[in-house]
């Protein structure tokens, strides 16, 4: 089952002891602070989890996949995520265990 904001709020209620309202607000605030930092051009480094970074992409040629028509993909700033070594190892070891 996919993990959602509602699941995270339940965990904060159960494990941290926040009330339901606070738990929901805390989850929302957690992601909002990350969005705001990135919006301001500041990368986010969450040790043990990973880093959210910004990349400036220049314009490049693209194509409408339906019509085949050529249209330029405009220059833009995008977010990239780099998992920490810890998270990569955790995912890798869990997978190795299933073999």
């Amino acid at each position: 089952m996919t993990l959602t904001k509602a699941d995270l709020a339940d965990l904060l209620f159960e494990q941290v002891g926040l009330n339901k309202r606070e738990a929901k607000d805390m989850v929302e605030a957690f992601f909002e602070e990350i969005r705001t930092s990135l919006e301001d051009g500041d990368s986010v480094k969450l040790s043990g989890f990973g880093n959210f970074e910004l990349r400036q992409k220049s314009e490049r040629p693209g194509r409408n996949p339906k019509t085949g028509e050529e249209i330029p993909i405009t220059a833009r700033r995008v977010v990239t995520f780099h998992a920490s070594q810890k998270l990569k190892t955790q995912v890798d070891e869990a997978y190795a265990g299933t073999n």
Partner: protein
Amino acid sequence: MTKSELIAKLAARFPQLVVKDAELSVKTVLDAMSDKLAAGERIEIRGFGSFSLNYRPPRLGRNPKTGTKVQVPEKYVPHFKAGKELRERVDVRD
């Protein structure tokens, strides 16, 4: 922004909570997300983005020091796709 700066910002948003609660909240959220990915499952945060695993097939690599060929086994790596709101807010054009 680092994890401790994030904790400080959240603590400031919730003056009724002690800093320890903000700290434990951040740890709880990040641990839950890591555990979910380690279980091979997805995370979907509306307005922020989704995390999933990408498959990397086995390949023949090279030890960069010695030049000898080594078999690199298949693996799964975490992948993030930004959601609509995050994408739009970050994409300032000048």
